[in-house]
């Protein structure tokens, strides 16, 4: 089976219309007509992840995020960049093929990035969640204990919390990746991947700082972009095995980059 044929099967089995005009959901490197030996699903096409996929005998990488360090995977300013040249040559030499599934994946029901994110931090009941964020009510706890649970269950190192650790919280609003939802009147804690810290559409960090200063029980937990969405790529690999039973499919996580 060729990479192109694999992608056609993904589009056919996704259960939602595939937007052929998406600039995100396209081949990013390699020859789509090469034969697929094995498939790696991941959150980000880091070079480190590519090397591990290659070592495992997998030559098609399906990633939720980009390869060339910008959302559009636009390489026009990178053609003379030494790192781009090295990584690109390595990809070509090793016959790797890269395809991105971003917009299509967020349109799917459920949205695996949301399902995986909730599961990875120990919040139950999100098995059918979609891209539209909704409140998850957990037994009342403190923001500090919730953060400790996130650390314990997910193993994420470099996440960041804002708000009073003693604040009593139970209503969680989660949006992984860069889709961190804005704080609402109903939510106690917003959990996201990353968000511009200030001067954006709605600055959660400042809002929660001020709420905490007023003694209102509000919090933000920023998990990190890749780690917040990555568990969903394991679900994606499982899902692919239901319609591609005869090619090895493995979840090959991108590394959490921070010390």
């Amino acid at each position, binding site marked *: 089976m060729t990479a192109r044929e694999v992608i056609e099967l993904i589009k056919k089995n996704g259960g939602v219309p595939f937007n052929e005009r998406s600039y995100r959901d396209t081949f990013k490197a390699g020859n789509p007509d090469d034969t697929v030996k094995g498939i790696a699903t991941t959150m*980000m096409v*880091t*070079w*480190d992840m590519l090397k591990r996929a290659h070592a495992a005998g997998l030559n098609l990488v399906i990633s939720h995020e980009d390869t060339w*360090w*910008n959302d559009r995977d636009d390489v026009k300013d*990178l053609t003379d*960049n*030494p*790192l781009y040249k*090295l*990584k690109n040559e390595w990809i070509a030499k090793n016959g790797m093929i890269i395809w991105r599934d971003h917009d299509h994946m967020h349109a799917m029901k459920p949205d695996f990035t949301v399902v995986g994110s909730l599961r990875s931090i120990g919040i139950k009941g999100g098995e059918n969640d979609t891209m539209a*964020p909704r409140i998850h009510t957990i037994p009342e706890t403190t923001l*500090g204990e919730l*953060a*400790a649970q996130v*650390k314990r269950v997910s193993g994420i190192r*470099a*996440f*960041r*919390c*804002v708000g009073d*650790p003693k604040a009593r919280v139970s209503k969680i609003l989660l*949006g992984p990746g*860069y*889709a*961190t*939802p*804005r704080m*609402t*009147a109903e939510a106690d804690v917003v959990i*996201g991947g*990353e*968000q*511009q*810290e*200030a*001067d*954006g*559409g*709605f*600055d*959660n*960090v*400042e*809002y929660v*700082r*001020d*709420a905490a*200063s*007023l003694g*209102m029980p509000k919090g933000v937990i*920023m998990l990190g*972009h*890749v780690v917040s969405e990555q568990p969903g790529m394991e679900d994606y690999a499982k899902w692919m095995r239901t319609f591609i039973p005869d090619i090895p499919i493995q979840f090959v996580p*991108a*590394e959490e*980059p*921070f*010390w």
Partner: protein
Amino acid sequence: MELSRRRFALVAGSASVTQLGLAGAEPLTAEVVVRRVQAELGGDWAAAGADGFKAGDPATVVKGIATTSMATLDVLKQVAKANANLVLTYEPTFYGRGDGRAAAPGGGRGPGGVSADDPVFKAKNEFIEKNGLVVFRLRDHWQARKDNDMVTGLAAALGWSAHRVKTDDALYDISPATAQATVDLIRTKLNLRAGLRAVGDRKATVRRVLLHPGAMTPATMWQRYSTVDLIVAGEVREWENTFYAADIFTAGDKRALVTVGRVVSEDPGMRACADWLKTVVKEVPATWIGAGDPYWRPTA
């Protein structure tokens, strides 16, 4: 339309205050201070720009000026305690680019802006009103200043002022140390908690550093990263600059990227702003109030 009406009210307000003041001496209102700052900094102060009055009455007579990277409620409480009443803030006061007044695109998901009956927004406004504070955003014109105090301020906070390579760039040649040791020094000097995140080679020897307060774009990263040992930035997008640094690490390059938090990276530059203000407005004291690192993470 809205702005021109406000402008008119401003002029009217200033006139009435002037009548109450001593003959010949113009009272030092917030509007007067701002006009002086605008004249000193120069440039075109477009009504539609980010800089401008965000809260309070510009006709208020100024007792003291406070500068900050972000006028959080905690900062405003310290302003009131310090008996200052005019705040110059680098970042927004009301949770986004629109500064509470209108929806703005970008940033997080969901509608931008903040509704007028939001309890946090209301309480902050009430605090400002009750304490007679005036808040003015000073970002574009402060960072456009030729001296670039956002960079020199950060260098001073890190103890690197004497190590600047040339005056028109943000490069510093510091005493060689490992990236790990340099990051530890930055954490201590800027009093950071979980806001600091580093990526790259901990063991790299750091001599040349690029300081970049605020947000750094991928284009800047791609151009500059390989020319230095360490970049110190406020914030970057993880899927762009962070993973560029991660890939360079995989390639075996010995360098590192550390982000300290956007607002924290802008704190020292606004401290420099307070020092500068003392030379422009001598009638009242000018003090700096740091917004600090908002982030923590559990230790256990």
